[in-house]
């Protein structure tokens, strides 16, 4: 065990058992998986992405490029979990990934030998030729070799939540600056949310030995958190990563509600996706340590100086027996001193600077830590790090060490500031990029803007928060800022050790080396955006948080530019990876989207209906009976029963729009191609509406219920679209019209009965209403009551071509009406039918439907051109007269029947003249709808073909290469049944 005997923010009274690669280990509450692994002497935790090189733990935060593991088992397995942020729980099980057969012996580390082939731009070079090998050889090879973890294969058994939140100030990051900001804003009365990705507030205070107001800084954290927790206007969100900044002050955040527990407790989600709307935001996300690039810098045991300090101080875990620190800045020195005080054996501090500040030399001397000034690490050795070779003025020296803690300076966590495109700005004095233009309403305080002093973090957090809430009208208290002392930190830019030995990695997660940067430079990919794409620098899941700055600085050195002029790439959301399941929340499986049942759904289910999705609706598709062997047999029976007796179908899904007002008729004249202002009260008319470009938008019947009262019906699919279009016409095009609209789609259940016996059935449910042919003729509308007092509207309309009525009653009476009609129709063999039989009958009748109203057809194409009024303007009139719509070769709507009656027709088949090949040039049109007609005993079709109406009787090929179809069909009139419409009028 490498657990330090004392100290740390771990609870030694709460030991936790866990396993890594099947091996049982123990840690404590307060550990991360990474700290627990280190405390158990585990230094090798994974294999690298491309070269399968052994890797250890590099960082102690969410920027971790190396220590990615598969967390949990079975359906809950989560690949690519960063061990550095996984909170340890009892029973945790984790496995290393991207290795085979085992972590210790990985066969594909041979990729290391192929390194020269896999360098910068290898996708574009190595595997270019022959191209045919890509799919069969190269891609599978690369995919197997270059891998991350394995996703779970079973559905996720846990639930995910989403929540909306609103606040005046969102504080992102709960370190010194964030806590002071939340306190200042919270005390002013503003609504504050403080989110931190860690499970404990405090940020770097948790890992640094510092004093605030002459007491250990941890006491400040505890006081601050206690006060914030007690403020009703402050919401604390620990374990919550604010991952994206979006327009209008909207932020996405992911709360890991139960990831730190063996299993989510009952009714508790695993994670919660927060959509936060904040009037102001304050980024206090701190900074991270950046590596120095040198040969052998990826060996397990090489970690950031900040990580060494964190593991030693916060977790009381000693990452290795002896540690060497290699740095270019004073912050790393204090990290070394803190680690030493916690019990880590610091073998030496190697600083590239020839002369380190005297105060630090003095502190090192006091602690007996050896210092090598002007030194550089030029090589490392050991499969797990065992020694470090240091070059200095006195020559080369090999120092035994299990840990090499490196720091090339700090990189402020500017990620969220660039989500709106703001380019980070280089500051030479700190050798780092600080936020440039921030998203509207966002401020930055503390280390995230390059202000590393603890004292100044506290002061800036308070000051920025006070200004932010003052802008919103809150009077911020003059919060006394706690006092802290710290020394100025100096840094000398240093990126890369020239002449060091062995592969030198810039991007540890994507295995991008110093040599790759050189290749990119040599081959001309010098702009940072090109460098990134050519080498894949910074394109891994960590977005290059530990590598981007170093990589582009090295490019700057090669091009002779300064780092600021070279610039940096931008960060995009999400800040850290987010599971899609968390964003979906409740909307998965059968709750992916709402399912809308019709008013007669339960009744249809009781009748054994098979249902089909129609948009969000679930409609009865057909009603199989015992003994029927396939759907076609059922549908044939339903069609025949309707055409010879009477059938029943729920048509409530049609859009229904109440249109009232003195100008209602004039309005309808402008949206339909035909005229409605002349429609008599108590009558219905079929109408067609166009888009302004002349294409048909929708069709349906509209009835006149009163002098200034119409009821429009739309197709099921276009209900919302037509309503929106009508509102556009009323509000934008003709606001002078006095028309009022209301959707009544949900108010009315509507059931259609059709067939020769329809009237006989209807007569039995109406309350003394005269529904005779004389009183209620074809396209007549009656209002009254049915079923002894239920308000009803009766429309004599037909889609099937038979004598038909649609009866509308308030939605809650729908089932009752269906049952009453079934009872009344029993003597006539009334048969419920579904959308399939409805489709067959409309094709037999030659009515257009969704397949024909396909966004490409004009009214004229569909044979509806004669309906168009020439006496008025309407939407789409002008452009429907364009030459292209009128030209001679234009398609028209006709019917098709197979020349050989046994042939099956296929929708989607294209029409070709006989004797011509199946090329686009010979294409004359296509089949839109087909059905087997039980009435005719063969398949029939509807379709669009050039000059169709002039070619009735002609034979063409119906060519369907996808399904191997190529049959002769005859062009015919689209109405296969009762073309004169006599049945409708009986």
């Amino acid at each position, binding site marked *: 065990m490498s657990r330090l005997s004392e100290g740390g923010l771990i609870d030694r009274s709460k030991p936790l058992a866990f396993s890594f690669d099947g091996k049982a280990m123990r840690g404590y509450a307060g550990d991360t998986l990474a700290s627990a692994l280190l405390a158990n002497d585990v230094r090798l935790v994974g294999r690298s992405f491309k070269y399968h090189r052994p890797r250890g733990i590099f960082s102690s935060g969410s920027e971790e490029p190396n220590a990615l593991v598969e967390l949990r088992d079975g359906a809950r397995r989560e690949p690519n979990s960063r061990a550095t942020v996984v909170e340890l729980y009892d029973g945790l099980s984790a496995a290393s990934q991207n290795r085979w057969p085992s972590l210790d012996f990985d066969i594909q580390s041979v990729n290391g030998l192929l390194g020269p082939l896999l360098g910068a731009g290898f996708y574009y070079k190595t595997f270019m030729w022959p191209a045919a090998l890509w799919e069969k050889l190269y891609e599978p090879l690369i995919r197997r070799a270059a891998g991350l973890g394995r996703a779970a294969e079973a559905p996720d058994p846990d639930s995910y939540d989403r929540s909306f939140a609103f606040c005046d100030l969102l504080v992102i990051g709960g370190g010194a600056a964030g806590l002071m900001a939340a306190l200042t804003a919270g005390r002013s009365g503003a609504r504050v949310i403080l989110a931190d990705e860690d499970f404990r507030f405090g940020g770097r205070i948790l890992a640094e030995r510092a004093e605030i107001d002459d007491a250990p800084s941890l006491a400040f954290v505890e006081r601050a958190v206690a006060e914030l927790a007690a403020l009703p206007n402050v919401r604390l969100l620990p374990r919550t990563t604010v991952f994206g900044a979006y327009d209008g002050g909207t932020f996405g955040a992911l709360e890991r509600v139960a990831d730190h527990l063996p299993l989510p407790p009952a009714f508790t989600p695993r994670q919660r996706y927060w959509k936060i709307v904040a009037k102001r935001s304050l980024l206090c996300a701190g900074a991270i340590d950046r590596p120095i690039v040198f040969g052998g810098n990826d060996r397990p045991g090489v970690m950031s100086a900040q990580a060494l300090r964190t593991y030693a101080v916060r977790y009381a875990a000693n990452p290795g027996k002896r540690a060497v620190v290699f740095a270019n800045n004073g912050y790393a020195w204090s990290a070394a001193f803190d680690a030493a005080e916690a019990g880590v054996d610091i073998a030496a501090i190697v600083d590239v600077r020839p002369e380190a500040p005297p105060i630090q030399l003095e502190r090192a001397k006091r602690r007996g830590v050896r210092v090598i000034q002007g030194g550089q690490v030029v090589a490392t050795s050991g499969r797990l790090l065992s020694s470090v070779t240091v070059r200095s003025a006195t020559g080369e020296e090999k120092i035994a060490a299990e840990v090499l803690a490196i720091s090339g300076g700090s990189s402020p966590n500017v990620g969220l500031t660039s989500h709106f495109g703001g380019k980070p700005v280089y500051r030479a004095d700190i050798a780092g990029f600080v936020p440039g233009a921030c998203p509207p309403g966002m401020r930055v305080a503390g280390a995230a803007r390059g202000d590393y002093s603890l004292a100044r973090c506290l002061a800036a957090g308070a000051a920025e928060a006070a200004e932010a809430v003052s802008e919103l009208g809150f009077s911020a208290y003059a919060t006394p800022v706690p006092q802290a002392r710290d020394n100025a930190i100096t840094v000398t830019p240093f990126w890369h050790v020239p002449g060091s030995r062995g592969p030198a990695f810039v991007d540890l997660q994507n295995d991008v080396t110093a040599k790759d940067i050189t290749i990119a430079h040599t081959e001309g990919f010098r702009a940072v955006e090109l460098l990134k794409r050519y080498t894949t620098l910074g394109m891994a899941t960590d977005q290059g948080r530990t590598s981007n700055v170093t990589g582009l600085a090295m490019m700057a050195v090669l091009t002779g530019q300064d780092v600021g002029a070279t610039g940096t790439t931008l960060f995009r959301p999400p800040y850290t990876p987010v599971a899609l399941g968390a964003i979906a929340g409740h909307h998965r499986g059968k709750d992916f989207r709402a*399912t809308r049942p019709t008013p007669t759904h339960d009744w249809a289910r009781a009748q054994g209906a098979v249902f089909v999705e129609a948009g969000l609706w*679930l409609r009865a598709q057909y009603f199989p009976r015992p003994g029927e062997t396939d759907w076609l047999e059922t549908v044939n029976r339903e069609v025949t029963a309707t055409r010879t007796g009477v059938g029943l179908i729920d048509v409530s899904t049609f859009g229904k729009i109440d249109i009232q007002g003195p100008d209602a008729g004039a309005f309808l004249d402008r949206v339909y191609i035909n005229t409605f202002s002349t429609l008599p009260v108590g009558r219905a008319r079929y109408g067609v509406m166009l888009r302004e470009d002349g294409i048909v938008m929708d069709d349906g019947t509209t009835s006149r219920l009163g002098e200034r009262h119409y009821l429009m019906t739309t197709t099921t699919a276009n209900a919302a679209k037509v309503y929106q279009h009508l509102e556009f016409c009323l509000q934008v095009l003709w606001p002078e019209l006095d028309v009022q609209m209301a959707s009544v789609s949900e108010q*009315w259940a509507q059931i259609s009965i059709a067939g020769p016996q329809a009237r006989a059935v209807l007569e039995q449910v109406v309350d003394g209403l005269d529904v005779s042919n004389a009183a209620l003729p074809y396209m007549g509308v009656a209002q009254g009551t049915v079923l002894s007092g239920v308000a009803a509207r009766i429309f004599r309309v037909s889609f099937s071509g038979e004598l038909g009525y649609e009866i509308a009653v308030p939605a809650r009476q729908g089932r009752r009406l269906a049952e009453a009609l079934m009872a009344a129709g029993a003597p006539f063999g009334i048969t419920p039918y579904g959308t399939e039989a409805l489709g067959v009958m409309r094709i037999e009748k030659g009515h257009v439907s969704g397949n024909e109203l396909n966004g490409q057809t004009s009214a004229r194409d569909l044979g509806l051109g004669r309906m168009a009024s020439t006496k008025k303007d309407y939407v789409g009139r002008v452009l429907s007269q364009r030459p292209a719509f009128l030209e001679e070769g234009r398609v028209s709507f006709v019917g098709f029947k197979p020349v050989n009656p046994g042939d099956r027709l296929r929708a989607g088949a294209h029409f070709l003249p006989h004797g011509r090949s199946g090329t686009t040039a010979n294409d004359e049109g296509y089949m839109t709808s087909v059905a087997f007609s039980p009435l005719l005993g063969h398949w029939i079709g509807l379709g669009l073909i050039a000059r169709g109406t002039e070619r009735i009787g002609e034979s063409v090929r119906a060519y369907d290469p996808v399904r191997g179809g190529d049959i002769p069909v005859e062009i015919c009139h689209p109405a296969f049944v009762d073309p004169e419409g006599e049945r409708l009028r009986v």
Partner: protein
Amino acid sequence: MSEILSDLPVTDLLPPGRHGRADGAPGVIAHPLSRLAVATLVACKGAVPRITEAALAAFGVALADAPKVSFTADIAFIGTGPGRWLVTASQAPEALMARLTDAFGDGAALTDQSDANLMLDLYGPAVGETLAKLVPVDLDPSVFRPGDAAATLVALMPLTFWQLNDSPAYRFAIPRSFAPAFLRALASAAASAGLEMAGPARG
């Protein structure tokens, strides 16, 4: 996630009874109202002043042309758009339509919507935290108060709701065909607090 949701057909209404966390008092109570008459009232062009006067004269209601509820013990007008209200009253739909026709004459379009919505009251100690998971509108007492109304998108479903009192209690008008899906979303959101689904009200 409530166990019942995996077995319940997506087209069925959540049955009455306790769902989600079963111990202790329910965090959310959902109470369907089955006898409420509902109508839409849309003012004719330029007729908002006339409608406002008529509402005051006929019902003693100071109608607000805003997303607010104007109500008396007898009748409530919920603003859903400019010159547009949802009207509710505890009486038969025909009776409400007759009263409104008498009051507003040809100054407004009236449409019976008594069957168009599931009317549902939501209240209980966890109603705020539950609605935060569903409603993309800020319901903080400093922002949304009794008498405020909103038409919005909840779990991808368009609906209207308003606040009845500061307990707080809210009334939702959910388009009828979306009611099963809404109740599923509600059961899911309220699972951690415990949901009591009341049977249909008699009133």
